[in-house]
């Protein structure tokens, strides 16, 4: 731009001024080329101190990251002995829902009589839990003996020294190995053994279908030998899976539907409300300035208040749930759509409207046949874009307002131990969002290009 103003075309080509212009331009470009990265760098340095990145290492808990990652793809089974009553319980993830019945313990937990239980961990280690002591035997046959006495917990090691994989104190001894973990306190003795995969994902322990292979299940589904009298096997299999009390597949499916519903209702209703209002806020359709100004400010207000504040205000009135989420999306998006649609209406080509006017068409007909066909593709494509992005927003709004998959997700994260469920929900959300993305892209191509 500096170049063209430097050269004056009507007075012939002035070499000196053209050169000056070019030099100015290059100097400016050079300044931007070096100045912009320098500014960015300076800003990042400021952030480094403002966000206390250096102190992050002290605050970070890498052991939490290890727990999170291992929980995502594996699960643990607890063997727990209450040292006061002597009762032993074997439970997946230590949950009541995953407790094995006393006569059907897994093969790696064996009762050895006289109140003694032998637990075989991976890598050939064993733990023998007896009433008077707990023995941990390594692969090499070394025995570590722990005695939970009333006066304190005593650890006997083969060479008298405590290795770094054992943390021992007067009140608690903890042994951590690749095969699992052993914790002894006065109150209880606990052994964890880790297994790959998500536990009880299809059937819980109380289901007759637990532990069967896929082919067996298919065979059972088609056999007339009913496991539950009066219910066909296929229906029983489905109901045991669908009502799985640990993974709650039915609730999760409902929650996902709620989230999609929030996005759908919010987006579509916002579009329906925004279209007529957009006509009132476009310069070329509304000669009445106060109306135009007023509606534009309403749009600005709706957008400016933001989904977060709308959600808070609405949830006070309507309580948690999908309706509150839909209304929050509706309010925010009416503002966004209003602005976008009125911009589209202002960019309408007047020629078609003129043509219709020359045939004596009324205002309504002019808009119907001259304007709508021009703006419909823009409106439609915006609505579809928002529908996709609102599916994601609905998850976040659900986390605040307490509805849909967002609620389940925050609940699972807050317990800080159900990371496998968090993974499950994330996978489902990603699938749903990608489906919506594909669907909206497909609809856009179909509806707009015909």
């Amino acid at each position: 731009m500096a170049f063209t103003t430097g050269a004056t075309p009507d007075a012939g080509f002035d070499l000196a001024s053209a050169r000056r212009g070019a030099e100015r331009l290059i100097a400016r470009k050079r300044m931007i080329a070096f100045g912009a990265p320098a500014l960015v760098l300076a800003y990042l340095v400021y952030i480094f101190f403002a966000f206390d990145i250096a102190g992050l290492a002290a605050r970070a808990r890498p052991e939490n990251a290890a727990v999170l990652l291992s929980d995502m793809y594996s699960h643990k089974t607890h063997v727990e002995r209450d040292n006061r009553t002597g009762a032993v319980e074997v439970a997946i993830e230590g949950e009541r829902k995953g407790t094995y019945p006393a006569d059907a313990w897994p093969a790696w937990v064996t009762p050895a009589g006289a109140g003694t239980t032998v637990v075989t961990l991976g890598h050939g280690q064993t733990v023998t839990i007896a009433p008077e002591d707990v023995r941990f035997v390594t692969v090499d046959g070394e025995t570590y003996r722990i005695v939970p006495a009333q006066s304190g917990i005593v650890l006997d090691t083969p060479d008298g020294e405590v290795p770094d994989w054992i943390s021992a104190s007067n009140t608690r001894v903890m042994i951590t190995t690749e095969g699992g973990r052993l914790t002894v306190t006065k109150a209880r003795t606990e052994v964890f053994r880790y297994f790959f995969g998500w536990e009880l994902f299809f059937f819980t322990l109380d289901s007759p279908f637990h532990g069967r292979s896929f082919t067996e299940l298919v065979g059972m589904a088609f056999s007339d030998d009913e496991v539950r009298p009066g219910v066909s096997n296929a229906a029983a299999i489905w109901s045991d899976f669908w009502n799985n009390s640990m993974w709650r597949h039915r609730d999760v499916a409902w929650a996902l539907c709620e989230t999609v519903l929030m996005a759908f209702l919010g987006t579509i209703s916002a579009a329906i409300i925004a279209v007529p209002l957009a006509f009132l806020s476009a310069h070329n359709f509304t000669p009445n300035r106060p109306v135009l100004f007023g509606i534009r400010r309403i749009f600005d207000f709706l957008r400016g208040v933001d989904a977060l504040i709308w959600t808070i205000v609405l949830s006070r009135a309507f309580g948690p749930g999908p309706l509150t989420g839909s209304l929050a999306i509706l309010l925010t998006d009416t503002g966004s759509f209003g602005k976008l649609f009125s911009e589209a209406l202002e960019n309408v080509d007047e020629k078609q409207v003129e043509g219709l006017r020359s045939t004596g068409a009324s205002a309504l007909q002019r808009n119907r046949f001259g304007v709508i066909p021009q703006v419909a593709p823009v409106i439609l494509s915006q609505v579809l874009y928002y529908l996709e992005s609102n599916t994601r927003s609905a998850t976040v709004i659900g986390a605040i307002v307490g509805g849909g998959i967002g609620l389940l997700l925050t609940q699972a994260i807050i317990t800080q131990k159900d990371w496998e469920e968090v993974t499950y929900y994330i996978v489902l959300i990603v699938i749903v969002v990608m489906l919506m993305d594909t669907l909206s892209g497909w609809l856009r191509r179909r509806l707009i290009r015909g």
Partner: protein
Amino acid sequence: MTELAAGGIKADYMAMVRRRRMYSGILMIVFVALLASGFRVANDRNAGGFFDGLHRVLDFPSELVAEAVEKAANLPANLVTYVPALIETLNIAAVSTLIGSLLAILLALLATPGLSLWPRAIPVFRRILDIMRAIPDVVIALMLIFVLGGGPVPAMLAIAFHTTGALGKLFSEVAENADLKPVEGLQSVGASWFQRMWLGVIPQVAPNWLSYALLRFEINVRASAILGFVGAGGIGYELKIAIGWGQGRYDAAAAIFLLLFLTIVVIDQFSSHMRNRLVKGH
């Protein structure tokens, strides 16, 4: 003869128009039914019904305004108190937009046919962008809070992650329409991939990319306020404390609402002005 043909064409045309109208009418009815039943389901599954709560919509705002007016003298002090939190929220949005844009540039170029360094890997990079876009930022933020502790860093990383995916797709769409002649010219003089992109592609797409990045910044300011509410620091966190059940300090909440509203409106206006200048040149 011609009149007859014209009559036939007219009849055909009218029949077609009628059929189209009927289809769109049916579609419209189905659509309205879907909406209505959707609202019914949402209403049934909500804790409080729509009509039960309708008269209460204004209760909270009016309570808030009443308390704020009553303690109007506190307002300037409250506004000043929450400015640092607001700056933190803005910083989270700005850094995450910055980092997200830089990563998005790299991934977008690698995912664009004709520009990619490894054309075979284009589908891989596209899927990576899709997945980064699909994971809601709140999920990543909550998981990072568990590992890194509270504060602005988890929110920043979470928003940057999502921004990379969202901008990567848009950047790649823009880059697809870039003129390849400068790139070929640079290639013919032996420029490296980085030089081809930096000198041949970036100057063409920079205005559009900047415009998208600005729009994203606007979205990220909102997102960072929301993440604060979920526990990641900044003004959202202060808001959560201020309106906490039972011990609500509505004068403080009103100040935060005001700050948030003004910030979003200013950024909204600024970014739409800048985007118009960048893309349309006026």
